[in-house]
């Protein structure tokens, strides 16, 4: 398989956009109510050691992606089976992102349009991007990150006139329990979804690059998410934030400065489109790369087209309604994703460290 090398800046941009992806529009960690800002900060803190672990795997075994590392750590047979499970995870996550995008378009804009249409258009764009490879996606992300960051921070600034600080009180009224539960949910969606990058990244410019890419990407993405979510709760209030399907969009709708600067919700749509595109492309890339690796093929590009078709079909089948979609994101996903994002990587890391120590292959 041809080695695809991306620069640190490109890697950070991809991680940042991936983290923002779905999290920008869906209400996450709503059960923490007015303490959601604290839940986001705790989640960032919890994510740092997990992402350091992902970076450590790359540092220990340079030039390898998760599928190679699984075979190194667990042996060929168990490694391949676990690899297949991860292929499913990436495929499922991609289908979720695609469906969220479809629901978003149908709910806020094109009510009469069949959902298959916006989903197919985005999927075809991602198909093209994935066929071009990770380097192209890196350049795309590098260029559009500035645009996304300016738009997110700009809309947050414009919302200052609508902010009501009483929405953040009372502080810890229900105690720490809902805050920690919400923090765990925010940890699994979106922060440790970055486990997908261990399937995509394999070659870095420098040996220290994995740490920089994962951690700087996490901190920047986390801070932007913190600003956005806190702003949404300040504007909408915790009740409306919890009951809205797309609170980010709803909050931006309120921008109205002297009847001149208004109707900026289209910016929220474009931001989600860009970050969702990156997130979906990464999921598609991970699925194709994983399937090709597990089945011993030297290239992944030949299966991108049928995998995209399957992902589109799966995204339609996956939920019956937007209510089910939201329930999955809030209730089921954290439990479902935890073994993929936390359990298996920890066991794999221990296996690799032990194996390397016993073989005397420890990196200098």
């Amino acid at each position, binding site marked *: 398989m041809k080695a695809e090398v991306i620069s640190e800046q490109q890697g950070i941009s991809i991680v940042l956009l991936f983290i923002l992806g779905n999290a920008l529009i869906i209400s996450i960690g709503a059960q923490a109510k007015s303490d959601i800002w604290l839940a986001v900060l705790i989640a960032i803190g919890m994510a740092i050691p997990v992402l350091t672990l992902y970076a450590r795997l790359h540092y220990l075994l340079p030039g390898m992606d998760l599928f190679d590392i699984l075979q190194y750590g667990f042996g060929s047979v168990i490694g391949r089976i676990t690899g297949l499970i991860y292929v499913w995870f990436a495929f499922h996550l991609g289908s979720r992102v695609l469906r969220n995008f479809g629901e978003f378009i149908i709910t806020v804009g094109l009510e009469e349009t069949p959902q298959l249409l916006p989903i197919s258009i985005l999927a075809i764009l991602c198909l093209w991007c994935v066929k071009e490879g990770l380097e192209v996606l890196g350049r795309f992300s590098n260029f559009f990150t500035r645009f996304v960051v300016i738009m997110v921070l700009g809309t947050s600034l414009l919302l200052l006139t609508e902010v009501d600080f009483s929405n953040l009180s009372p502080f810890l009224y229900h105690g720490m329990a809902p805050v920690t539960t919400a923090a765990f949910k925010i940890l699994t969606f979106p922060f440790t979804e970055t486990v997908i990058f261990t399937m995509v990244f394999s070659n870095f410019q420098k040996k220290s690059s994995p740490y920089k890419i994962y951690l700087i990407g996490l901190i920047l993405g986390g801070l932007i998410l913190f600003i956005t979510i806190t702003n949404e709760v300040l504007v909408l209030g915790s009740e409306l934030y919890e009951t809205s399907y797309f609170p980010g969009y709803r909050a931006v709708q309120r921008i109205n400065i002297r009847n001149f600067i208004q109707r900026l919700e289209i910016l929220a749509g474009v931001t989600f489109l860009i970050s969702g595109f990156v997130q979906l492309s990464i999921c598609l890339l991970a699925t194709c790369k994983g*399937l090709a690796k597990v089945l011993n093929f030297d290239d992944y590009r*030949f299966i991108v087209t*049928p995998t995209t*078709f*399957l992902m589109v*079909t799966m995204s339609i*089948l996956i939920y019956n309604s937007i209510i089910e979609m939201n329930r*999955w994101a809030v209730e*089921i996903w954290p*439990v479902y994703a935890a073994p993929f994002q936390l359990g298996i990587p920890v066991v794999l890391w221990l296996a690799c460290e032990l194996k390397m120590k016993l073989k005397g292959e420890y990196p200098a």
Partner: protein
Amino acid sequence: MFILLVLAYLLVGCAEVFLWETKDIRKIGLFGTLLIGSLILSALMLLGVDIPSPTGFFEKLILSLS
């Protein structure tokens, strides 16, 4: 409509394989399997067959555990 769907898949599949530089039989096999899988699911959806959500199993499992 069903025939159109099959034709569209056939066209995409043949065009893609035709453009490959090396036509490895294993690659064609995997490509075909995935494409046919997608075609079957799309056709069932088109015919209005009620297909249970593939993630429903995980949902039931997680809810029964919690």
